[in-house]
């Protein structure tokens, strides 16, 4: 007996009860996701009749034999037929077979032609999805004919040996359309949460906008934020375009403000003001301010998310501040000390105070020299400054020395790379 079995081979097989009375044919399999890597078959869906189709669900525990026919324990009288087709956590024909899935390894979208199961004690475990031509031919029921023909004419053909399988654990079912279907979201969330956000963003690059959006929507909101920040600005725009204003506003509220500004700059004025309206007032005020700065000046590059403390704070306050902000997307290794008017007094970093006594005033741990840039400083000045002091982050002050925000090295790098890339392209 084979260890592996194809869905197309058992689909449509006769199902009989203990007295060999025909119950119907196998029309679908319901699976439980559970904690295992491979989902396990939990229900048979049996179909009877052609015009007045009736469906019945049978627990997989009753399966006694799984061969040319499927034999179950119990009697036909125990089976209840209904008009409605049953739906499960994972219903193979509805959710997997013939649907599009994302192949996480090769990062492309493919269509499932067949499913291959691992068969253990009459239970089926979903091991692979088949996306190759052989699967297609098998589904059409032409395996023997085509195999025979290929063998006769091209005995060395790749077709005979090459299987296009994707392991189920590397497969992501795309949530269909916009109106369907909450169940799939759960599958998606579990599996997607294990993939680093930068990789998810890369996968999304290769999808078209609908696929992109449905994949995006199936992410948990915290993962959504991370992935969104990793997307390129045009892609972010596409996503925001598909969202309702409420959703978009909420998203903008939660991503770092420099990313939000980049995105907003590319939107039509009208859309900006609608989005501002649905956002919280605090955030929208901040964004409005940032929007007024030149794009590649310090003011345009900076983010307004940073940690700060009043001048009389102690080292223990600083530690607490960092602990409270572990979850945030901001740079948490630097803390800025400000006076009552929000003027910058000094900068300190975790490295400076981690070994200090918790009652030491935080001002004592600051860097001796105040390094900063002004809001209207250009990109080059910022880049040179960061390089000179080997800083990864620098505060931005306005004319009155008031702290407006900070620039992190990755914001500068991003701009520089796009400039360098442009120059490189010109050369070509």
């Amino acid at each position, binding site marked *: 007996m084979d260890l592996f079995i194809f869905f197309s081979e058992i689909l449509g097989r006769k199902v009989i009860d203990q007295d060999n009375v025909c119950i119907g044919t196998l029309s679908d399999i319901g699976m439980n996701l559970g904690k295992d890597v491979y989902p396990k078959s939990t229900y048979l869906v049996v179909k009877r009749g052609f015009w007045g189709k009736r469906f019945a669900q049978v627990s997989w525990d009753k399966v006694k034999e799984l061969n040319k026919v499927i034999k179950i324990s119990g009697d036909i009288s125990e089976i209840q037929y209904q008009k409605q087709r049953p739906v499960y956590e994972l219903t193979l024909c509805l959710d997997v077979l*013939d*649907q*599009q899935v994302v192949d996480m390894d090769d990062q*492309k979208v*493919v*269509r*499932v*032609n067949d499913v291959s199961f691992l068969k253990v004690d009459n239970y089926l475990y979903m091991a692979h999805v088949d*996306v190759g031509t052989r699967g*297609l031919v098998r*589904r*059409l029921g032409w395996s023997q004919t085509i195999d025979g023909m290929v063998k006769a004419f091209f005995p060395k053909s790749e077709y005979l040996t090459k299987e296009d399988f994707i392991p189920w654990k590397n497969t992501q079912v795309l949530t*269909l*359309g*916009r*109106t*369907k*279907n909450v169940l799939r979201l759960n599958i998606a969330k579990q599996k997607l949460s294990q993939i680093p956000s930068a990789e998810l963003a890369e996968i999304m690059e290769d999808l*078209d*906008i*609908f696929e992109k*959006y*449905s994949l995006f929507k199936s992410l948990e909101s915290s993962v959504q934020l991370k992935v969104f920040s990793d997307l390129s600005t045009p892609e972010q725009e*596409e996503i925001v*375009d*598909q969202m309702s204003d409420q959703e978009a506003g909420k998203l903008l509220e939660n991503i770092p403000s420099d990313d939000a500004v980049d995105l907003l700059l590319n939107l039509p004025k*009208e859309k900006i003001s609608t989005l501002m309206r649905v956002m919280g007032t605090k955030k929208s005020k901040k964004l409005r301010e940032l929007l007024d700065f030149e794009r590649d000046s310090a003011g345009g590059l900076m983010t307004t998310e940073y940690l700060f403390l009043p001048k009389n704070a102690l080292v223990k306050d600083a530690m607490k501040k960092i602990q409270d902000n572990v979850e945030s997307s901001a740079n948490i290794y630097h803390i800025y000390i400000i006076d009552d008017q929000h003027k910058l007094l000094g900068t300190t970093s975790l490295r400076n105070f981690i070994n200090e006594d918790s009652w030491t005033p935080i001002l004592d741990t600051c860097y001796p020299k105040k390094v900063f840039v002004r809001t209207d400083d250009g990109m080059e000045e910022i880049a040179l400054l960061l390089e000179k002091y080997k800083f990864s982050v620098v505060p931005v002050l306005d004319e009155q020395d008031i702290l407006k925000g900070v620039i992190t090295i990755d914001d500068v790098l991003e701009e520089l790379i796009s400039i360098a890339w442009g120059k490189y392209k010109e050369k070509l």
Partner: protein
Amino acid sequence: MQFVEKIKNLKFVRNFLLFLAIMGPGIITSNVDNDAGGIATYSLAGAHFGYTLLWSLIPITLALIVIQEMCARMAVATGKGLADLIRENFGVKITFHLMWILLVVNLLNVMAEFAGVAASLEIFNINKFFTVPLAALFVWTLVVKGTYKTVEKIFLTACLFYVTYIFSGFIAKPEWTEVFRQTIRPEITFDLKYSVMLVGIIGTTIAPWMQFYLQSSIVDKGISIEQYKHVRMDVVGGSILAPIVAFFIVVACAATLFKAGITIESAKDAAVALEPLAGKYAKILFSFGLFNASIFAASVLPLSTAYCICEGMGWNAGVDKRFEEAPEFFGLYTALIAIGAGVVLIPNFPLLKIMYFSQVGNGILLPFILIFMLILINDKSLMGEFTNNRVLNIFTWLTVIVIIALTLLMVGFSVFCPNQFI
């Protein structure tokens, strides 16, 4: 500047600008529908039956609107092409058979388009061994080297050239009172020839490939649900424009050829026969229109066919991919053009028969596709709140049943009395 801003912010202007951005798929699809075969059919209708068939364009317009709107709605609501939806909901077997029939039928259609290119330029004494390979090369490079946006712009420009038929309609100097009388209060006769022509007009106006093309191109444009009303305007606009062009073709031929009692066999005959009756310009406009229509359709058809077959079979597709990434797609696309254009160059190739078979093929395929569409669009789990409502459902089922009956009639006609047919 402030003034310009103010105008831009007017609701009407804003809506119009949005519409311009979204416009394209509907108008292009409907216009491609007036392809070489379509123009031939309308010319014949005008030349042999005068104005008496004009009335049929009104119900055709309504049917076009109803069917195309469903495609557009499915595209926006599901974000998937028609072939995708059929595969996902009806399984691989049905899809496979549908796809190979579609491939054959569309290949015949592509042949007809290249034949149209050859015929239209032969009127100007340009040899087809020169024009057809050039046209094939042009079509191939246009799509493979172009981006969606530039291709769409070229297509929209091609739509503009259909105006030539409106001009030829006016140049032919028809009796407008008669034209309107026949449109609104037609004198319908029901002899065999008339019925065959009537069915032919309907068959050529609503073709299976259109549904696939329209839905995919709306999906490709990434149009969101909020923009749906603009899509609908685009689709309805296109569905009205195309029959208007057809109207003027019929009028041009009726006012000249029918009056003079000339019988013709093809659109090329019509163009040539126009010269002594309506002047040189009428001929030039008419044949240029035919050229434009043929090459336009020859660009759209192979692409749309390759796309939807790859969609249905789950192969990679897209003009922005490399050959190794999507070998099936580029293979199909290139083969369709190469065979379609190559066949036209074979001496004594029975082109009229090809055109006729392509019509029959369209007719056989259409009922299946329309029924699939109706099942899909009423699927709540797929369409959500975008399913048909009851009134619309009754209307669409009626439309679909009438179209199916008529196309079956056409298939019947063409099988049992092929001589009556073109």
